[in-house]
């Protein structure tokens, strides 16, 4: 006999025909659960069976409490409601008492109570899931709204590089509707110079699972425009498995334009400096040379004591000559163009060292020549930093160093001087604040960045880096 026929009999009120059914029906289990009913641990199944046998004499509170505890145990062994119902159905067939309807009907009622009691802890959990799900839905809704209204494009792609979601800002950026975009692969809207972007992102997501990766690429919009964007991406993991990528793309057209303008301006300034340096070196040098000759002629015509004062004049002229050469050099060091960044910095350090009486070491390597815009920018930053050390730091020593990694050139100018409050200086727009801003702008123009580390009494470190074109 099955629980279903029993239920049917009770629902239709044909209770009087029960003994007949009980007599005829074979005692077989009707599997309700897709799971093998034997998945219920034997110990729990045995307990359930004895509850059903005991309730033949009625389900008292002791029995119901035992049923509740059994339900709790079943829940904590991760059984589902269907498992419990399947077990119940199977055991009902085995435990139905011998006898007529007057015995079977009260037993059925008691067995119902047992089942309900066993299922009660499940109900508590289900309500919990409902509450938790409602909270989750609300939080997902808020998240979706935030994402939709963001100014940056936010997207996800699957492991094949197909777009799986895109917000409104993303639609605006690429000019495709979401419906069209979700049919596309990320490759199709990224400029062909970055053919392996998705694969690179995957590799980085696997190497550094919790870090955001930043890339500058051009996006191809639906109207054919190229839009420079900075993509910040991260892997989406389910457990330990990478299942996709999530990215934020920011239109950096304005920033890119500003950087280009700044780079042109810097180039222009450097050319001007070069012309002034030449004028100073060549023309002032020429004039000085003729002054030398005239002074020598005059000296020949003078008496020995007067000649000695003119000799002093010549020593002064030597110093003027030296100063002009140095100034011309610092204005635009030919050594930077001829020999590169480190030799130029060494020459610069010698000059500052002499004038400010402090020890300056220059170390590290740039690993070969760099683009002249980059070399100039780094030289100017080092120059400004050393000028600041000489003027403000009261340092005994300073060190300039360079280090090249795969894609980045890092530099640092460090001193052991008095230090300063970085925030306060950056907020003032005095010379020193402007100096720091100037350094930053030099670097930004070549895509680099600047970090100033200092505190009163703790020296100063100006750290900077520039990405290198591969």
């Amino acid at each position, binding site marked *: 006999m099955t629980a279903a026929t029993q239920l049917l009999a009770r629902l239709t009120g044909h209770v009087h025909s029960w003994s007949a059914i009980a007599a005829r029906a074979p005692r077989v289990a009707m599997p309700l659960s897709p799971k093998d009913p034997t998945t219920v641990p034997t110990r729990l199944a045995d307990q359930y069976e004895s509850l059903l046998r005991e309730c033949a004499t009625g389900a008292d*509170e002791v029995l119901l*409490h035992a049923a*509740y505890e059994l339900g709790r145990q079943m829940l904590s062994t991760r059984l589902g409601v269907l498992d419990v119902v399947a077990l119940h159905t199977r055991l009902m067939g085995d435990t139905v008492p011998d006898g007529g309807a007057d015995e079977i009907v009260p037993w059925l009622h008691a067995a119902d109570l047992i089942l309900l009691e066993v299922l009660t*802890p499940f109900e*508590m*959990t289900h*309500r919990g899931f409902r509450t*938790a799900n409602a909270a989750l839905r609300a939080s997902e809704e808020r998240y979706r709204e935030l994402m939709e209204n963001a100014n940056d494009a936010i997207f996800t792609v699957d492991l094949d590089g197909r777009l799986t979601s895109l917000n409104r800002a993303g639609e605006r950026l690429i000019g495709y509707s979401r419906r069209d975009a979700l049919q596309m692969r990320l490759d199709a809207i990224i400029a062909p110079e970055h053919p392996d972007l998705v694969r690179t992102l995957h590799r980085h997501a696997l190497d550094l699972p919790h870090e955001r990766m930043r890339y500058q690429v051009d996006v191809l919009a639906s109207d054919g425009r190229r839009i420079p964007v900075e993509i910040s991406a991260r892997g989406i993991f389910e457990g330990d498995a990478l299942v996709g990528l999530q990215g934020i793309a920011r239109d950096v057209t304005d920033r890119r334009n500003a950087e280009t303008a700044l780079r042109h301006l810097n180039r222009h300034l450097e050319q001007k400096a070069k012309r002034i340096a030449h004028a100073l070196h060549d023309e002032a040098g020429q004039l000085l040379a003729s002054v030398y000759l005239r002074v020598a002629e005059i000296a020949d015509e003078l008496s020995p004591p007067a000649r000695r004062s003119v000799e002093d004049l010549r020593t002064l002229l030597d110093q003027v000559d030296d100063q002009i050469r140095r100034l011309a050099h610092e204005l635009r060091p030919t050594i930077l163009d001829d020999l590169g960044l480190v030799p130029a910095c060494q020459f610069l350090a010698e000059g500052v060292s002499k004038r400010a009486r402090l020890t300056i070491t220059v170390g590290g390597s740039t690993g070969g020549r760099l683009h002249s815009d980059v070399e100039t920018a780094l030289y100017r930053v080092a120059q400004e930093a050393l000028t600041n050390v000489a003027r403000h730091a009261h340092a005994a020593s300073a060190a300039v160093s360079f280090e090249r990694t795969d894609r980045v050139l890092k530099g640092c100018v460090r001193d052991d001087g008095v230090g300063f409050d970085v925030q306060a200086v950056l907020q003032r727009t005095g010379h020193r604040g402007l100096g720091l801003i100037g350094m930053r702008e030099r670097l930004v123009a070549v895509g680099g960045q600047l970090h100033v580390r200092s505190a009163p009494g703790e020296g100063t470190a100006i750290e900077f880096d520039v990405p290198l074109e591969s």
Partner: protein
Amino acid sequence: MSGRTGPDAAPWTIHVDSDAAIVAARRQGRHLAHGLGFGAAQVATVVTVITELTRNILLYAGEGDLTLTTIGAGRRPGLEITASDHGPGIANLTEALADGFSTSGRLGLGLPGVKRLMDEFDITSTPGCLTTVTTRTWRK
């Protein structure tokens, strides 16, 4: 309905120190809930809450008291269930009440379950001192 427990009945208290006390509390809770005219689902709720609170007492404090009070005289009737013990207390109430469905894999039974099943829930606990859980449910 005959035998209905009036809303003015005196509080019923039992000292909880054994499974037998849990069973007695369940029986009394079922009786009171029926008497207040609670439906079958709400009766099951009341019995569940009594079971969870009393088993908590046994599990964490060894012994304590459970009090059932019918409330809401003249208005919608309800049942107040109060459990108190001198156990170790609950050092972190927020944690004890947190549903951990997705993170810790807990099943949402115990105090979070009780909190969810009842209309009102209040708990005071000082580690090492008295812990009191007071809950109320009103007839639906």
